Protein backbone atom coordinates (compact mmCIF):
# COMPACT_ATOMS: atom_id res chain seq x y z
CA UNK A 1 0.00 0.00 0.00
CA UNK A 2 1.30 3.39 -0.93
CA UNK A 3 0.90 5.98 1.75
CA UNK A 4 -1.76 8.51 0.84
CA UNK A 5 -0.82 12.08 0.17
CA UNK A 6 -2.32 14.16 3.00
CA UNK A 7 -3.52 16.81 0.58
CA UNK A 8 -5.30 14.26 -1.60
CA UNK A 9 -6.88 12.88 1.50
CA UNK A 10 -8.05 16.32 2.57
CA UNK A 11 -9.62 16.85 -0.85
CA UNK A 12 -11.34 13.52 -0.73
CA UNK A 13 -12.73 14.22 2.74
CA UNK A 14 -13.95 17.62 1.52
CA UNK A 15 -15.59 16.04 -1.51
CA UNK A 16 -17.37 13.69 0.85
CA UNK A 17 -19.03 16.73 2.40
CA UNK A 18 -16.73 17.33 5.37
CA UNK A 19 -16.88 21.05 6.12
CA UNK A 20 -13.83 21.16 8.31
CA UNK A 21 -11.64 19.71 5.55
CA UNK A 22 -13.04 22.23 3.08
CA UNK A 23 -12.47 25.02 5.59
CA UNK A 24 -8.82 23.99 5.97
CA UNK A 25 -8.27 23.86 2.21
CA UNK A 26 -9.65 27.37 1.86
CA UNK A 27 -7.30 28.59 4.59
CA UNK A 28 -4.42 27.11 2.63
CA UNK A 29 -5.24 28.96 -0.58
CA UNK A 30 -5.76 32.16 1.36
CA UNK A 31 -2.24 32.02 2.73
CA UNK A 32 -0.64 32.07 -0.71
CA UNK A 33 2.82 30.64 -1.23
CA UNK A 34 3.78 27.09 -2.03
CA UNK A 35 0.99 25.31 -0.17
CA UNK A 36 -1.58 27.48 -1.90
CA UNK A 37 -0.05 26.65 -5.27
CA UNK A 38 -0.23 22.92 -4.51
CA UNK A 39 -3.85 23.12 -3.40
CA UNK A 40 -4.73 25.23 -6.41
CA UNK A 41 -3.10 22.76 -8.77
CA UNK A 42 -4.96 19.82 -7.29
CA UNK A 43 -8.26 21.65 -7.26
CA UNK A 44 -7.73 22.54 -10.90
CA UNK A 45 -7.89 18.87 -11.85
CA UNK A 46 -11.33 18.45 -10.34
CA UNK A 47 -12.91 21.84 -10.99
CA UNK A 48 -14.95 23.27 -13.85
CA UNK A 49 -18.35 21.86 -13.00
CA UNK A 50 -19.91 24.43 -10.72
CA UNK A 51 -21.93 27.41 -11.77
CA UNK A 52 -20.42 30.64 -10.46
CA UNK A 53 -22.72 33.56 -9.69
CA UNK A 54 -21.33 36.96 -8.68
CA UNK A 55 -23.37 39.38 -6.58
CA UNK A 56 -22.19 42.96 -6.28
CA UNK A 57 -23.55 46.42 -5.53
CA UNK A 58 -23.04 49.36 -3.21
CA UNK A 59 -22.76 48.78 0.56
CA UNK A 60 -26.12 48.36 2.27
CA UNK A 61 -28.11 47.37 -0.80
CA UNK A 62 -28.88 43.93 0.63
CA UNK A 63 -26.32 41.78 -1.17
CA UNK A 64 -25.77 39.39 1.73
CA UNK A 65 -29.46 38.85 2.33
CA UNK A 66 -30.04 38.22 -1.37
CA UNK A 67 -27.05 35.89 -1.53
CA UNK A 68 -28.28 33.87 1.43
CA UNK A 69 -31.76 33.62 -0.05
CA UNK A 70 -30.40 32.64 -3.46
CA UNK A 71 -28.45 29.76 -1.97
CA UNK A 72 -31.72 28.48 -0.51
CA UNK A 73 -33.97 28.85 -3.55
CA UNK A 74 -31.40 27.35 -5.89
CA UNK A 75 -32.63 23.98 -4.67
CA UNK A 76 -29.07 22.74 -4.85
CA UNK A 77 -27.91 20.17 -2.36
CA UNK A 78 -24.52 21.80 -1.78
CA UNK A 79 -24.52 25.52 -2.48
CA UNK A 80 -21.53 27.58 -1.39
CA UNK A 81 -21.14 31.26 -0.62
CA UNK A 82 -17.91 33.23 -0.70
CA UNK A 83 -18.51 36.53 1.10
CA UNK A 84 -15.73 39.04 0.63
CA UNK A 85 -15.21 42.03 2.91
CA UNK A 86 -12.38 44.55 2.98
CA UNK A 87 -9.43 44.33 5.36
CA UNK A 88 -8.38 47.50 7.11
CA UNK A 89 -5.47 48.93 5.14
CA UNK A 90 -3.98 50.17 8.42
CA UNK A 91 -4.06 47.10 10.64
CA UNK A 92 -4.78 44.24 8.25
CA UNK A 93 -7.70 43.22 10.44
CA UNK A 94 -11.25 42.82 9.22
CA UNK A 95 -14.80 42.50 10.49
CA UNK A 96 -16.53 39.90 8.38
CA UNK A 97 -20.20 40.44 9.06
CA UNK A 98 -21.96 38.91 6.08
CA UNK A 99 -22.89 35.71 7.87
CA UNK A 100 -25.34 37.42 10.19
CA UNK A 101 -27.37 38.48 7.16
CA UNK A 102 -27.36 34.98 5.75
CA UNK A 103 -27.63 32.46 8.53
CA UNK A 104 -31.35 32.95 9.05
CA UNK A 105 -32.23 32.34 5.44
CA UNK A 106 -29.72 29.72 4.40
CA UNK A 107 -30.37 26.05 4.70
CA UNK A 108 -27.80 24.24 6.78
CA UNK A 109 -26.51 22.51 3.66
CA UNK A 110 -24.92 25.74 2.44
CA UNK A 111 -21.22 26.28 3.00
CA UNK A 112 -20.45 29.90 3.82
CA UNK A 113 -16.93 31.28 3.89
CA UNK A 114 -16.02 34.86 4.74
CA UNK A 115 -12.91 36.20 3.12
CA UNK A 116 -10.99 39.36 3.87
CA UNK A 117 -9.15 41.21 1.14
CA UNK A 118 -5.81 40.94 3.00
CA UNK A 119 -3.18 43.35 1.80
CA UNK A 120 -3.40 44.87 -1.63
CA UNK A 121 -6.35 44.01 -3.79
CA UNK A 122 -4.19 42.15 -6.29
CA UNK A 123 -3.96 39.31 -3.80
CA UNK A 124 -7.72 38.94 -3.87
CA UNK A 125 -7.69 38.62 -7.64
CA UNK A 126 -5.68 35.43 -7.16
CA UNK A 127 -7.12 34.08 -3.91
CA UNK A 128 -10.75 34.24 -5.06
CA UNK A 129 -10.35 32.13 -8.22
CA UNK A 130 -8.39 29.65 -6.11
CA UNK A 131 -11.12 29.54 -3.47
CA UNK A 132 -13.78 29.06 -6.17
CA UNK A 133 -11.70 26.24 -7.62
CA UNK A 134 -11.44 24.52 -4.24
CA UNK A 135 -15.19 24.83 -3.58
CA UNK A 136 -15.86 23.52 -7.07
CA UNK A 137 -13.48 20.60 -6.66
CA UNK A 138 -15.18 19.77 -3.35
CA UNK A 139 -18.47 19.39 -5.19
CA UNK A 140 -20.19 22.66 -4.24
CA UNK A 141 -22.64 24.07 -6.78
CA UNK A 142 -23.65 26.80 -7.32
CA UNK A 143 -20.91 29.01 -5.92
CA UNK A 144 -22.11 32.51 -5.14
CA UNK A 145 -19.42 35.17 -4.73
CA UNK A 146 -20.45 38.35 -2.98
CA UNK A 147 -18.33 41.49 -3.10
CA UNK A 148 -18.87 45.14 -2.33
CA UNK A 149 -19.29 46.97 -5.62
CA UNK A 150 -16.85 49.74 -4.91
CA UNK A 151 -13.44 49.76 -6.51
CA UNK A 152 -12.31 48.20 -9.71
CA UNK A 153 -11.01 44.96 -8.24
CA UNK A 154 -14.08 44.17 -6.17
CA UNK A 155 -16.36 44.75 -9.13
CA UNK A 156 -14.14 42.76 -11.46
CA UNK A 157 -14.09 39.81 -9.04
CA UNK A 158 -17.86 39.58 -8.98
CA UNK A 159 -17.85 40.17 -12.72
CA UNK A 160 -15.53 37.19 -13.20
CA UNK A 161 -18.51 34.92 -12.65
CA UNK A 162 -20.62 33.02 -15.15
CA UNK A 163 -23.53 35.25 -14.21
CA UNK A 164 -23.12 38.61 -12.50
CA UNK A 165 -25.98 40.09 -10.47
CA UNK A 166 -25.83 43.81 -9.74
CA UNK A 167 -27.95 45.03 -6.82
CA UNK A 168 -29.29 48.56 -6.51
CA UNK A 169 -31.94 50.12 -4.27
CA UNK A 170 -34.61 52.78 -4.81
CA UNK A 171 -33.11 56.22 -4.45
CA UNK A 172 -29.64 55.02 -5.35
CA UNK A 173 -29.24 57.85 -7.82
CA UNK A 174 -30.18 58.44 -11.38
CA UNK A 175 -28.83 56.94 -14.56
CA UNK A 176 -25.75 59.14 -14.54
CA UNK A 177 -24.67 57.64 -11.22
CA UNK A 178 -25.12 54.20 -12.65
CA UNK A 179 -22.80 54.97 -15.48
CA UNK A 180 -20.22 56.46 -13.17
CA UNK A 181 -20.17 53.43 -10.94
CA UNK A 182 -19.06 51.19 -13.76
CA UNK A 183 -21.50 48.57 -12.56
CA UNK A 184 -23.80 48.65 -15.55
CA UNK A 185 -21.38 47.06 -17.97
CA UNK A 186 -20.83 43.98 -15.83
CA UNK A 187 -24.47 43.18 -15.05
CA UNK A 188 -26.14 40.12 -16.52
CA UNK A 189 -29.10 40.53 -14.17
CA UNK A 190 -30.19 43.65 -12.28
CA UNK A 191 -31.90 43.58 -8.94
CA UNK A 192 -33.80 46.52 -7.49
CA UNK A 193 -33.87 45.39 -3.87
CA UNK A 194 -35.92 46.94 -1.05
CA UNK A 195 -38.70 47.14 -3.61
CA UNK A 196 -41.19 47.81 -0.82
CA UNK A 197 -39.75 51.31 -0.59
CA UNK A 198 -41.15 54.21 -2.55
CA UNK A 199 -39.94 54.65 -6.08
CA UNK A 200 -38.72 51.14 -6.76
CA UNK A 201 -40.42 51.51 -10.11
CA UNK A 202 -38.52 54.73 -10.71
CA UNK A 203 -35.26 52.91 -10.13
CA UNK A 204 -36.35 50.24 -12.58
CA UNK A 205 -37.28 52.89 -15.12
CA UNK A 206 -33.84 54.53 -14.82
CA UNK A 207 -32.20 51.18 -15.44
CA UNK A 208 -34.42 50.46 -18.43
CA UNK A 209 -33.49 53.81 -19.92
CA UNK A 210 -29.81 53.08 -19.48
CA UNK A 211 -30.19 49.67 -21.03
CA UNK A 212 -32.13 51.14 -23.96
CA UNK A 213 -29.23 53.46 -24.65
CA UNK A 214 -26.50 50.90 -24.48
CA UNK A 215 -28.11 47.72 -25.74
CA UNK A 216 -26.39 46.23 -28.75
CA UNK A 217 -28.15 42.95 -29.32
CA UNK A 218 -27.53 39.64 -27.57
CA UNK A 219 -28.37 39.29 -23.91
CA UNK A 220 -30.25 42.16 -22.37
CA UNK A 221 -29.95 42.22 -18.60
CA UNK A 222 -33.39 41.68 -17.03
CA UNK A 223 -34.42 43.76 -14.03
CA UNK A 224 -35.90 41.97 -11.04
CA UNK A 225 -37.63 43.68 -8.12
CA UNK A 226 -37.00 42.01 -4.76
CA UNK A 227 -37.63 42.53 -1.08
CA UNK A 228 -34.95 40.18 0.10
CA UNK A 229 -35.67 40.40 3.83
CA UNK A 230 -39.15 39.02 3.09
CA UNK A 231 -37.89 36.66 0.42
CA UNK A 232 -40.03 38.35 -2.20
CA UNK A 233 -38.86 38.16 -5.79
CA UNK A 234 -36.01 35.77 -5.04
CA UNK A 235 -37.57 32.90 -6.98
CA UNK A 236 -37.94 35.22 -9.95
CA UNK A 237 -34.32 36.27 -9.57
CA UNK A 238 -33.15 32.67 -9.57
CA UNK A 239 -35.26 32.02 -12.68
CA UNK A 240 -33.47 34.86 -14.48
CA UNK A 241 -30.09 33.48 -13.39
CA UNK A 242 -31.09 30.10 -14.79
CA UNK A 243 -32.28 31.73 -17.99
CA UNK A 244 -28.91 33.46 -18.29
CA UNK A 245 -27.13 30.17 -17.67
CA UNK A 246 -29.11 28.60 -20.52
CA UNK A 247 -28.26 31.55 -22.73
CA UNK A 248 -24.55 31.12 -21.90
CA UNK A 249 -24.70 27.48 -22.94
CA UNK A 250 -26.70 28.05 -26.10
CA UNK A 251 -24.66 30.98 -27.34
CA UNK A 252 -21.27 29.51 -26.56
CA UNK A 253 -20.60 32.50 -24.31
CA UNK A 254 -19.90 30.26 -21.34
CA UNK A 255 -16.75 28.81 -22.87
CA UNK A 256 -15.66 32.26 -24.03
CA UNK A 257 -16.21 33.77 -20.60
CA UNK A 258 -14.35 31.03 -18.85
CA UNK A 259 -11.46 31.32 -21.28
CA UNK A 260 -11.24 35.01 -20.63
CA UNK A 261 -11.40 34.40 -16.91
CA UNK A 262 -8.48 32.00 -17.05
CA UNK A 263 -6.44 34.36 -19.20
CA UNK A 264 -7.13 37.21 -16.81
CA UNK A 265 -6.04 35.05 -13.93
CA UNK A 266 -2.69 34.35 -15.56
CA UNK A 267 -2.10 38.08 -15.88
CA UNK A 268 -3.29 38.66 -12.31
CA UNK A 269 -0.89 36.06 -10.97
CA UNK A 270 2.05 37.57 -12.80
CA UNK A 271 1.05 41.00 -11.61
CA UNK A 272 0.83 39.83 -8.01
CA UNK A 273 4.23 38.22 -8.15
CA UNK A 274 5.77 41.34 -9.65
CA UNK A 275 4.02 43.44 -7.07
CA UNK A 276 5.60 41.32 -4.35
CA UNK A 277 9.00 41.87 -5.93
CA UNK A 278 8.37 45.59 -6.00
CA UNK A 279 7.37 45.59 -2.33
CA UNK A 280 10.50 43.64 -1.52
CA UNK A 281 12.70 46.02 -3.43
CA UNK A 282 11.11 49.05 -1.78
CA UNK A 283 11.71 47.54 1.65
CA UNK A 284 15.26 46.46 0.88
CA UNK A 285 18.35 48.40 1.94
CA UNK A 286 19.11 49.68 -1.53
CA UNK A 287 15.47 50.64 -1.92
CA UNK A 288 15.66 52.58 1.32
CA UNK A 289 18.78 54.40 0.13
CA UNK A 290 16.94 55.57 -2.97
CA UNK A 291 13.76 56.43 -1.07
CA UNK A 292 15.62 58.51 1.49
CA UNK A 293 17.04 60.54 -1.39
CA UNK A 294 13.46 61.10 -2.47
CA UNK A 295 12.67 62.22 1.08
CA UNK A 296 15.45 64.82 0.88
CA UNK A 297 14.15 65.84 -2.53
CA UNK A 298 17.48 65.05 -4.15
CA UNK A 299 15.65 62.70 -6.48
CA UNK A 300 12.23 63.03 -8.05
CA UNK A 301 9.77 60.17 -7.51
CA UNK A 302 9.83 59.53 -11.24
CA UNK A 303 13.63 59.30 -11.40
CA UNK A 304 13.73 57.06 -8.31
CA UNK A 305 11.10 54.75 -9.81
CA UNK A 306 13.02 54.53 -13.05
CA UNK A 307 16.22 53.67 -11.20
CA UNK A 308 14.60 50.98 -9.07
CA UNK A 309 12.77 49.54 -12.04
CA UNK A 310 16.05 49.18 -13.92
CA UNK A 311 17.44 47.48 -10.82
CA UNK A 312 14.49 45.10 -10.71
CA UNK A 313 14.82 44.22 -14.38
CA UNK A 314 18.53 43.51 -14.02
CA UNK A 315 17.65 40.74 -11.53
CA UNK A 316 14.95 39.38 -13.75
CA UNK A 317 16.24 37.35 -16.70
CA UNK A 318 12.81 37.22 -18.33
CA UNK A 319 12.81 40.95 -18.87
CA UNK A 320 16.15 40.64 -20.70
Amino acid at each position, binding site marked *: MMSRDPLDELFETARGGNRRALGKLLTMVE*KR*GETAAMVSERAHNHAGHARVVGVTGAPGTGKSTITGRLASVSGASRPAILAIDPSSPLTGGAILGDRIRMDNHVSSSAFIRSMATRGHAGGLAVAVPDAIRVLDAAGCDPIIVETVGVGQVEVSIAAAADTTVVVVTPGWGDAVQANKAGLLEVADVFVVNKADRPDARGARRDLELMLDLGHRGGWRAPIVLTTATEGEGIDGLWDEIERHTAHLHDSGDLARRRCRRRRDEVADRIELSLRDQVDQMIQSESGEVVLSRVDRQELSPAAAAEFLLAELKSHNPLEG
Partner: protein
Amino acid sequence: MSEPPADTSPSPDAEFEAPIRVVLAKLGLDGHDRGLKVVARTLRDAGMEVIYLGLRQTTDSIVAACEQEDADVIGLSMHNAGHLTLAPRMLQAVDQAGLDVPVVIGGIVPADDVSTLIDSGVAAVIGPGTSAEEVVSAVKAAVDRQPDAQ
Protein backbone atom coordinates in the same frame (compact mmCIF):
# COMPACT_ATOMS: atom_id res chain seq x y z
CA MET B 1 24.18 50.02 -5.04
CA SER B 2 24.06 47.59 -7.94
CA GLU B 3 24.47 44.72 -5.48
CA PRO B 4 21.30 42.69 -5.11
CA PRO B 5 19.63 43.81 -1.92
CA ALA B 6 20.46 41.63 1.04
CA ASP B 7 17.25 41.99 2.95
CA THR B 8 15.35 39.85 5.34
CA SER B 9 11.89 40.25 3.90
CA PRO B 10 10.17 37.06 2.81
CA SER B 11 10.52 35.76 -0.72
CA PRO B 12 7.56 36.39 -3.04
CA ASP B 13 6.38 32.85 -2.65
CA ALA B 14 6.58 32.84 1.12
CA GLU B 15 3.35 32.22 2.95
CA PHE B 16 1.54 35.03 4.62
CA GLU B 17 1.54 35.06 8.32
CA ALA B 18 -2.17 34.43 8.40
CA PRO B 19 -4.19 36.68 10.72
CA ILE B 20 -5.94 35.07 13.67
CA ARG B 21 -9.54 34.29 12.70
CA VAL B 22 -11.96 34.73 15.57
CA VAL B 23 -15.67 33.92 15.67
CA LEU B 24 -17.62 36.32 17.92
CA ALA B 25 -21.11 35.50 19.09
CA LYS B 26 -23.71 35.67 21.81
CA LEU B 27 -25.46 32.46 22.80
CA GLY B 28 -29.18 32.14 23.26
CA LEU B 29 -31.42 34.87 24.62
CA ASP B 30 -29.06 37.70 25.44
CA GLY B 31 -29.55 41.02 23.74
CA HIS B 32 -26.62 43.03 25.05
CA ASP B 33 -24.29 43.15 22.09
CA ARG B 34 -22.59 46.49 22.55
CA GLY B 35 -19.65 44.90 24.34
CA LEU B 36 -19.28 42.35 21.57
CA LYS B 37 -19.21 45.12 18.98
CA VAL B 38 -16.51 46.94 20.91
CA VAL B 39 -14.48 43.73 21.14
CA ALA B 40 -14.97 43.10 17.41
CA ARG B 41 -13.51 46.50 16.66
CA THR B 42 -10.69 46.01 19.15
CA LEU B 43 -9.65 42.67 17.65
CA ARG B 44 -9.91 44.02 14.12
CA ASP B 45 -7.65 46.90 15.06
CA ALA B 46 -5.19 44.33 16.40
CA GLY B 47 -5.04 42.82 12.90
CA MET B 48 -7.41 39.89 13.44
CA GLU B 49 -10.17 38.73 11.12
CA VAL B 50 -13.40 38.83 13.07
CA ILE B 51 -16.26 36.66 11.86
CA TYR B 52 -19.13 38.41 13.53
CA LEU B 53 -22.14 36.22 14.21
CA GLY B 54 -23.84 38.54 16.67
CA LEU B 55 -27.01 37.78 18.58
CA ARG B 56 -29.04 34.65 19.27
CA GLN B 57 -26.62 31.99 18.15
CA THR B 58 -26.71 28.34 19.15
CA THR B 59 -23.80 26.07 19.97
CA ASP B 60 -24.49 24.33 16.66
CA SER B 61 -24.46 27.52 14.60
CA ILE B 62 -21.18 28.58 16.24
CA VAL B 63 -19.56 25.20 15.62
CA ALA B 64 -20.76 25.27 11.99
CA ALA B 65 -19.28 28.73 11.50
CA CYS B 66 -15.98 27.62 13.09
CA GLU B 67 -15.71 24.68 10.70
CA GLN B 68 -16.51 26.64 7.56
CA GLU B 69 -14.42 29.64 8.52
CA ASP B 70 -11.54 27.56 9.91
CA ALA B 71 -11.59 29.79 12.98
CA ASP B 72 -8.72 29.80 15.48
CA VAL B 73 -10.73 30.91 18.51
CA ILE B 74 -14.30 31.53 19.68
CA GLY B 75 -15.22 34.65 21.63
CA LEU B 76 -18.50 34.47 23.53
CA SER B 77 -20.12 37.44 25.16
CA MET B 78 -22.41 36.68 28.09
CA HIS B 79 -24.65 39.05 29.99
CA ASN B 80 -27.56 36.84 30.92
CA ALA B 81 -26.12 35.01 33.91
CA GLY B 82 -26.27 31.81 31.90
CA HIS B 83 -22.52 31.34 31.67
CA LEU B 84 -22.33 28.36 34.02
CA THR B 85 -24.87 26.53 31.85
CA LEU B 86 -24.00 27.77 28.39
CA ALA B 87 -20.20 27.86 28.51
CA PRO B 88 -19.82 24.15 29.31
CA ARG B 89 -22.32 23.35 26.54
CA MET B 90 -20.27 25.38 24.10
CA LEU B 91 -17.12 23.53 25.13
CA GLN B 92 -18.90 20.23 24.79
CA ALA B 93 -20.18 21.09 21.31
CA VAL B 94 -16.68 22.11 20.22
CA ASP B 95 -15.30 18.92 21.65
CA GLN B 96 -17.94 16.73 20.03
CA ALA B 97 -17.22 18.30 16.65
CA GLY B 98 -13.58 17.35 17.13
CA LEU B 99 -12.43 20.97 16.92
CA ASP B 100 -9.33 22.32 18.65
CA VAL B 101 -10.75 25.78 19.10
CA PRO B 102 -10.35 27.58 22.44
CA VAL B 103 -13.28 29.50 23.91
CA VAL B 104 -12.78 32.94 25.46
CA ILE B 105 -15.61 34.46 27.46
CA GLY B 106 -16.34 38.12 28.00
CA GLY B 107 -19.12 40.00 29.69
CA ILE B 108 -20.53 39.81 33.19
CA VAL B 109 -19.16 36.85 35.10
CA PRO B 110 -19.07 37.06 38.92
CA ALA B 111 -15.58 36.60 40.35
CA ASP B 112 -16.63 33.39 42.09
CA ASP B 113 -17.58 31.81 38.78
CA VAL B 114 -14.38 32.63 36.91
CA SER B 115 -12.36 29.76 38.31
CA THR B 116 -15.28 27.37 37.72
CA LEU B 117 -15.30 28.36 34.06
CA ILE B 118 -11.53 28.10 33.74
CA ASP B 119 -11.60 24.69 35.39
CA SER B 120 -14.25 23.53 32.96
CA GLY B 121 -11.95 24.39 30.07
CA VAL B 122 -12.66 27.99 29.14
CA ALA B 123 -9.39 29.57 27.92
CA ALA B 124 -9.92 32.98 29.49
CA VAL B 125 -12.60 35.12 31.11
CA ILE B 126 -12.50 38.83 30.37
CA GLY B 127 -14.60 41.11 32.53
CA PRO B 128 -15.59 44.76 32.56
CA GLY B 129 -12.72 47.23 32.70
CA THR B 130 -10.33 45.02 30.79
CA SER B 131 -8.15 47.16 28.54
CA ALA B 132 -8.06 46.68 24.78
CA GLU B 133 -4.48 45.39 25.06
CA GLU B 134 -5.50 42.81 27.64
CA VAL B 135 -8.38 41.61 25.46
CA VAL B 136 -6.04 41.20 22.50
CA SER B 137 -3.35 39.41 24.47
CA ALA B 138 -5.88 37.08 26.11
CA VAL B 139 -7.16 36.03 22.68
CA LYS B 140 -3.64 35.62 21.33
CA ALA B 141 -2.59 33.57 24.35
CA ALA B 142 -5.63 31.32 23.96
CA VAL B 143 -4.69 30.64 20.33
CA ASP B 144 -1.01 30.08 21.16
CA ARG B 145 -1.84 27.50 23.80
CA GLN B 146 -3.58 25.29 21.26
CA PRO B 147 -1.58 22.18 20.32
CA ASP B 148 -1.74 22.79 16.56
CA ALA B 149 -0.98 26.52 16.74
CA GLN B 150 1.38 27.68 14.02
